[in-house]
């Protein structure tokens, strides 16, 4: 099977800090790929480069045959994304949020409404379509974001900590939706998480990043063998150490975190 994401010698520097340090990896079409790492390891920076939000300092990325720095729009059409923190317009309804996305992604008018309905039904939010997102719970917001990310039939779905702050029931549901589309549409899934049991259960392949470098790659089994451990959590700790990481947060991140805490 061919690689739908190919990353070669990718580096990102912010002034003197090297956030991502010469990493290479590939993601095969149709697989579920977990990208794991402690806070501040370089996960978000990598995702931003893969999704055209940041240009790399060095190295090469190919997403579905195109380079995100050179051919942004082709790459943007090929993926959907669920961001780590909220990205819905709370003052619009679920329906309007979906319509907004459909227009931005150029979904033709004739099929727009049907497609939006299909996706809202898929995540079981059809009955709430006329409600403002403001009134939605954390889990409902997540479902809506997933529905939105899938709206334009992306080849790849990026999920940055999609289950953060959700209860086990909702987490379970969320992964069921995602696995469904992965299977039925052969859509590639690239996700990050801090819940190791999720990665263990769902991912076909895993890469672990730490201090900007990939420290391990392979299936769960391969990682367990490599580290002589019995769970992915142990493997992860053995690969990345037990020390607590303090991430440097921007003022914007701090504000989002405050809002996030208020909501939960």
């Amino acid at each position, binding site marked *: 099977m061919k690689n739908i994401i190919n990353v070669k010698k990718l580096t990102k520097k912010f002034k003197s800090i090297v956030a991502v340090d010469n990493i290479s990896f590939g993601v095969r079409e149709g697989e579920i790929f977990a990208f794991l790492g402690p806070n501040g390891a370089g996960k978000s920076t990598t995702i*931003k480069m893969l*999704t*055209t*939000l*940041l240009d790399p300092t060095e190295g090469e990325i190919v997403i579905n045959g195109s380079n995100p720095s050179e051919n*942004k*729009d*082709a790459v*943007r*059409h090929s993926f959907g*994304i669920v*961001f780590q*923190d*909220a*990205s*819905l*317009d*709370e*003052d*619009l309804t679920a329906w*309007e949020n979906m*319509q*907004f*996305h459909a*227009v*931005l*992604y*150029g979904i033709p008018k004739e099929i727009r409404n049907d497609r939006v309905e299909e996706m809202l039904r898929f995540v079981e939010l059809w009955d709430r379509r006329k409600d403002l997102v403001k009134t939605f719970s954390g889990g409902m917001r997540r479902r809506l974001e997933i529905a*939105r990310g899938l709206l334009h039939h992306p080849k790849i779905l990026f999920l940055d900590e999609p289950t953060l702050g959700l209860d086990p029931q909702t987490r379970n549901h969320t992964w069921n939706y995602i696995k469904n589309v992965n299977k039925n549409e052969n859509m590639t899934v690239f996700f990050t998480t801090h819940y190791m049991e999720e990665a263990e259960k769902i991912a076909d392949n895993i890469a672990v990043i730490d201090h900007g470098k990939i420290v391990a790659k392979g299936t769960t089994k391969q990682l367990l063998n490599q580290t002589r451990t019995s769970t992915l959590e142990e493997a992860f700790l053995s690969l990345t150490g037990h020390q607590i990481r303090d991430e440097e947060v*921007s*003022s*914007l991140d701090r*504000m*989002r975190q405050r*809002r996030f805490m208020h909501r939960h």
Partner: protein
Amino acid sequence: MNTIYILWLRQLKKYFRSKSRIVGSLGQPLLFMIAFGFGFGSIYQRAGEGNYIEFLAPGIILMSVLMTGMFSGVDIIWDKQFGFLKETLVAPVSRFEIVLGKTLGGATVAVIQGIIVFLLTLVMGFRLQTMADIFPAFVFVFLVALLFTSLGTAIASILEDMQGFQLIMNFLVMPTVFLSGAFFPLKGLPRAIEFLTKINPLTYGMDGLRGALINVSTYPIYMDLFILSVVTLVLLGIGSYLFSKIQA
């Protein structure tokens, strides 16, 4: 085209949904109208300047347009905070279309606000000379709306959060309003103040609108229109440029 339209539509929907914001934003013009209008009205008349409400009404209308425009532009900070901005930044559309749609939406909202305040001034006793004056007046109101929405967009593109915003309100918005001739005629001012009024783009919007509505103006109406258009275009350019440089 669709992108511009949907972003424009979003601004309007959000405006009409925030009923409390609309009502709240009418408080200040109403207060100024009452306090200044009735407070200074008789002094103004005794000084031989005529009807003060007539002079003041265009000033209050433009003040509301300016503020609503600035706020609509500064909306982008909320989009940054609420994360919605990222949704638009990864979409396969040009950032120029995004910022243009958003700015036009903000300007439209500001014009609507201006119309509401205009209706309020009618209640307060303001009268048009002829209905035809509406059209040139509309042009000036729209330009002022677009100018200050663009300015808000530019500022919001640089600011990371709302903390710097109060500073801008106090040191940019209020002086701009006060030094534009919104509340008093720009006559016999000290040199330094006069200079400030001359580099203030709102002065020309103010002068143009008064010229259109009550036939009183300091500069020729074409000069007002020209200066205002140029400054608006420049700020629209700067706002778009700064927006396109936002890092997610």
